[in-house]
C-alpha cells in the first residue's frame, strides 16, 4: 500500500525535476545561442555610445592641442541656439526627405500599379528596375556627376536637342539654384525602385476575391482603387516611407560625391555637416553633441517604425 503511493510520488518528483532541468537547459541553450551576438552588439554600440555621451559635455579641439575640458551643456546650447549652419543643414535634410520620399512614393506607386498588370515579364523587369538600389551610392553619385556635367554631360546635350538649341541646360552641380534639385533627383533615381518593390509586394498580397466581389457589385475601377487597393496598401506604404525617411536622414555618400555640400552649403545635409565638424574641423565635443541630436531624431522615427511593425505583423 505504502509502496503503491510512494512510487507514483517518486515518479512525479522525477518528472518535475526532469522538466525543471529540461527547462533550465533550454534556457541556458537559448541564452548561450544569443550571447555572442548580444555581446558583440553591446560592445560596439553601447560602449561607443557612452564614450560619445561623455564627449557631449566636453570641449575637445584636436586642432589646438589643448586638453579636453568639461563645458557642461555648452555644446548642446551652441548647436541648438547659435549654429545657423546646423539648422540650415537640418532644413536641407528635411527638404530632401519630404520631397524625395514624396516623389519616390508617387513614381514608385505608379510603376508598381503598371507592373502589377503585367504577366510573365514582371519578375525580370522588377529585377532590372532594382539595379539602382543594389549599387553603391558613391558609384551612383559618380554616374550622375558625369550626367550632370555642364559641358560634356548627356543631360545638357539632351536638353539642347529637345529645345532645338535654344537652351543649353544648367550647371547642375555648380549652380546654387539647382544643386539641391540635382541631389534630389539622384536620390529619386536610386530609391524609387525600392518603393516600387514594396508597393508591388503590397498589391500582390491583396486577395483577388476582393476585386471579384467588387466587380460583381458593379464598382467602378476608381471606387475599387480607393476603397480596396488604397486602404489595404496603406500599412505597407507607411513602412516604406519610414524606412526611406530614416535612410534619407543619414544621406551622406551622394552628397560627398556629387556636390561635397556645395556650392556654399546649399546641399549640406546634417550627416555631411557632422562629418565636417568631426573629421575636417576636429571639434570632437561639438560633433558628439550633433551626433546625439541625430540619434534622438532617428530613435523617434525608429520607434514609430517598430510600433507599426509590431502592430502590423500577420496583417501584411
Amino acid at each position: 500500500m505504502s509502496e503503491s503511493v510512494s512510487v507514483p510520488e517518486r515518479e512525479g518528483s522525477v518528472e518535475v525535476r526532469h522538466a525543471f532541468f529540461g527547462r533550465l537547459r533550454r534556457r541556458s541553450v537559448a541564452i548561450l545561442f544569443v550571447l555572442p551576438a548580444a555581446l558583440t552588439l553591446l560592445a560596439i554600440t553601447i560602449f561607443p555610445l557612452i564614450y560619445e555621451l561623455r564627449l557631449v559635455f566636453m570641449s575637445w579641439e584636436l586642432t589646438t592641442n589643448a586638453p579636453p575640458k568639461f563645458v557642461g551643456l555648452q555644446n548642446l546650447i551652441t548647436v541648438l541656439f547659435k549654429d545657423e549652419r546646423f539648422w540650415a543643414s537640418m532644413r536641407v535634410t528635411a527638404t530632401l526627405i519630404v520631397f524625395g520620399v514624396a516623389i519616390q512614393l508617387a513614381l514608385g506607386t505608379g510603376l508598381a500599379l503598371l507592373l502589377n498588370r503585367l504577366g510573365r515579364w514582371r519578375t525580370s523587369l522588377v529585377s532590372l528596375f532594382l539595379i539602382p538600389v543594389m549599387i553603391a551610392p558613391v558609384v551612383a553619385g559618380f554616374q550622375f556627376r558625369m550626367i550632370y556635367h555642364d559641358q560634356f554631360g548627356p543631360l545638357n546635350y539632351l536638353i539642347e536637342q529637345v529645345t532645338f538649341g535654344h537652351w543649353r541646360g544648367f550647371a547642375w552641380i555648380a549652380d546654387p539654384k539647382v544643386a539641391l534639385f540635382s541631389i534630389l533627383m539622384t536620390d529619386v533615381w536610386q530609391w524609387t525602385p525600392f518603393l516600387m518593390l514594396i508597393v508591388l509586394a503590397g498589391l500582390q498580397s491583396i486577395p483577388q476575391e476582393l476585386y471579384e466581389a467588387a466587380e460583381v457589385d458593379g464598382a467602378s475601377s476608381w471606387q475599387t482603387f480607393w476603397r480596396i487597393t488604397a486602404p489595404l496598401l496603406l500599412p505597407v506604404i507607411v513602412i516604406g516611407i519610414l524606412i526611406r525617411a530614416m535612410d534619407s536622414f543619414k544621406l551622406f555618400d551622394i552628397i560627398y560625391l556629387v556636390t561635397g555640400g556645395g556650392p556654399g552649403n546649399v546641399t549640406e545635409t546634417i550627416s555631411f555637416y557632422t562629418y565636417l565638424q568631426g573629421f575636417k574641423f576636429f571639434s570632437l565635443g561639438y560633433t558628439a553633441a550633433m551626433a546625439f541630436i541625430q540619434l534622438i531624431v532617428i530613435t523617434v522615427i525608429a520607434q514609430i517604425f517598430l510600433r507599426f511593425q509590431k502592430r502590423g505583423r500577420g496583417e501584411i
Partner: protein
Amino acid sequence: MRRMSSFQKLITVVVLVAALVFFMFPVVWMFLTSFKTEAEYFSYPPVFIPEDFSFRNYFNAMAFPPDGRGGIQGLRDSLIIASATTVVSVLIGSLAAYSLSRFKTGGENFSFWILSTRMFPPVAAALPLFLIFKEIKLLDSHLALIIANTVFSLPFVIWLLKGFFDELPTELEEAALIDGCSHWGAFARVALPLVTPGLVATALFSFIFAWNEFMFALLLTRRNVRTLTIIVPSLVGGHEILWGEIAAIGMVAIIPGILLALLLQRYLVRGLTMGAVKG
C-alpha cells in the same frame, strides 16, 4: 485582374519602357564611358558609343597610383572586408536568430532592441569608433572595418533569419530532440539545412551592404586599406578627372550588386525591408 484594352496596354508598355530607360541610363552610360578614350568622354556633342571596346581603362584602373595597384587593392580590400563581415555576422547571427525564434529569448523587446541598432546613424557611430580604434591602434586595418560593418550587418542578419526560422515548422526539431539529439544538433543538423535558401539570401545581402559601405571606409582608413568605394571618390575632383578609369572601377564595383538584383529576385522585398514586408 480585368482585361486591359489595347490602348491601356500601349500606355503601360510605353511608360514602362520610358521608366526602364530612365533607371538604366546612368548605369549604361558608365558602362559605355568605361570603354571611351579621353577624347571621347571630353567631347561635345557627347560620344555615345565608343569606337572600340578595348579594356585599356580597366587595365589602367587596376594599376592606379599611388602605388601602382589601386584597383587591385580596392578589389582585394573590398572582398576581404565584405566576406569577413558576412561570415562573422552569419555565424553568430544565425545562432541568435534561432534562439530568438525558438525560445523567444529576452522577449519581443530584446528582438526590437537588436533591430533598432541597425537604424543608428553611421555618422554618430563613426566618431567614437574612430577614437577607440585610434586608441587601440586599429585604424587603417581590415579588422576595424569588419568590426564597424558587423554592427550594421548583424542586426539585419538576425532579424531576417529569425523570419525564416519563424516560418519553419518546429515538429522536425522536436522529433530530433525526442530521439536524443542535443539542442545544438537540432539547430545545426535539422533547422539550419532547412533554411539554406534563406541563409544564402541573407548572406548575399549582408555581403552587398558591406561591399557598398562608404562612410566607415572613408573615416577609419588611410593608406593601407582602400576599398573600391574609397577609390572612386578619391579619383573624382581636382581639375583632371580620369572618367574612363573611374567608370571602369565603378563597373567592377557594381557587378556584385547587379548580379544580386537578378539572383535574389524572390528575396528582394524581404531583404530590403528587413522582413518588415513579406514578398
